[in-house]
């Protein structure tokens, strides 16, 4: 295995892990409401920007990250209450949430550009600096890459355990299948939906901080492409499946880095969407998705 291939593979795995986190965040709101928060990208950006700003005000980096996560969590609840809930209430089967969540994301992006400026800002070292590395198979591997991968895998395992093993996980699944029946059975549907948007936003924030850490800079436009790639990962893996999110994220990450390295960096994102179209044509339920079972 030559060094070039290995380094591409590694970069692919690590950005793939971030795509997986974004996909996981999209999955969370899909579980409870069958909606996706297309403002996710702006939440990622905002979390990273706020971290930069807070730490520039003399606050410790760890505290700055926690503070920014709290802000995006609150925004997540705001998004559910004021952009998704009204859109779902409007005449049955409305897709208004696509526009309203996307719109709110664009609004956040505009606000960030106004108050933080549209220049890229250098992102502080959160856990390790870009110079820290370990040797693996005779290769230098940046510790940042490993941290990103570990965080993604840990969160995915935790969520999968939550959904499969706990009563609340089962309740979340029930809400997605039939919210009215869930209500009548005493499941606090409102709180679960609100909670899913909050957690989804926190995941977006974590993904934002991690990818800013890898890239080294953030700017207001950052996040928009990322959420699209996260969406591709989610669909490829099977919308709603946590392991699917991880697999989809890694496939998209590795493939786009390989194409970027051997063909052209301009084709990096293109290949992801080619993959999306292929997946929808050949296996619409995704790698880990299950087709719906039902009998009249």
């Amino acid at each position, binding site marked *: 295995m030559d060094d070039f291939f290995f380094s591409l593979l590694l970069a692919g795995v690590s950005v793939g892990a971030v795509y997986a986190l974004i996909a996981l965040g999209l999955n969370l709101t899909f579980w409870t409401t069958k909606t996706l928060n297309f403002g996710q990208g702006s939440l990622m950006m905002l979390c990273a920007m706020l971290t930069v700003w807070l730490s520039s005000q003399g606050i410790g980096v760890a505290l700055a990250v926690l503070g920014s996560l709290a802000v995006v969590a609150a925004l997540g609840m705001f998004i559910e209450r004021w952009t998704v809930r009204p859109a779902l209430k409007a005449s049955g089967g409305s897709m208004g949430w696509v526009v309203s969540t996307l719109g709110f994301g664009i609004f956040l992006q505009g606000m960030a550009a106004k108050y933080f400026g549209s220049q890229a800002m250098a992102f502080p070292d959160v856990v390790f600096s870009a110079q820290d590395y370990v040797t693996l198979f005779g290769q230098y591997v940046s510790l940042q890459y490993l941290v990103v991968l570990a965080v993604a895998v840990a969160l995915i395992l935790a969520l999968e355990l939550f959904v499969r093993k706990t009563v609340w996980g*089962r309740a979340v699944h029930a809400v997605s299948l039939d919210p009215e029946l869930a209500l009548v059975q005493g499941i606090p549907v*409102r709180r679960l939906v609100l909670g899913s948007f909050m957690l989804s936003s926190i995941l977006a924030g974590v993904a934002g901080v991690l990818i800013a850490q890898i890239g080294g800079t953030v700017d207001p436009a950052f996040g928009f492409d990322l959420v699209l790639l996260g969406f591709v990962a989610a669909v490829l893996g099977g919308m709603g499946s946590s392991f699917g999110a991880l697999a989809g994220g890694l496939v998209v990450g590795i493939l786009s880095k390989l194409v970027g390295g051997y063909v052209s960096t301009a084709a990096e994102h293109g290949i992801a969407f080619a993959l999306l179209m292929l997946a929808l044509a050949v296996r619409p339920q995704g790698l880990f998705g299950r087709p*719906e079972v039902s009998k009249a």
Partner: protein
Amino acid sequence: MLELRGVTVRYGAVRALEDLSLRAEPGGITAILGANGAGKSSLMRAVSGIAPVVGGSVLLDGQDITGLPAPARAKLGIAHAMEGRRLFRQLTVEDNLKLAWSFGARRVALPASLAEIYDRFPILKEKARTPAGLLSGGQQQMVILSCTTIRSPRCLLLDEPSLGLAPIIVQQIYGFITDYAARSGITVVIAEQMATLALKVSRHCLVLRRGRVVLQGPSAELLQGSDGKALAASYL
């Protein structure tokens, strides 16, 4: 005891229930009869908290629950088996039961609750790991009924439990319901289109037409008495 006082339910401009009052006593079955669209389901939805009640009040054992959201009412002990055989189709039979138990009163431990149900409906034990949506209509109805009783409710609302089932299955289902009502002594309200069947098992009966009560009284009287004609008329 369940009590409705002048309840009005409106969907947009359509009135589903109009100034409706009723008392359903515990320890016996109250039947709600009426044709399609008479307001039977709306009545039940008003009690469980998923219909837009614009006037009147709903009381459970004297406590006004009109302002409470559906999950809070479920917690107080209202169990509603909705029309159209509603269950979580993608979840297994056992997951449906476990979920219902988890958010119910939990008066009996889960293993004992499940054992009791499997004892009553052995077929459900066989199908415990099958997605509920793949069961036959009768088996699904058994799951739905079990999901309500496993919650140890104080008030049971059953919306057309006989709908679309073979007569022999209907008999079995109704056997279970009357048995459960007698054993538990709770308030049971059944909405039914099959009038004779409902009158036979119930103690008290109300006939709805266009969201109003047009006839009510002890079921035995309605079944044989001079009201037979009035009963038939309310369906026309």
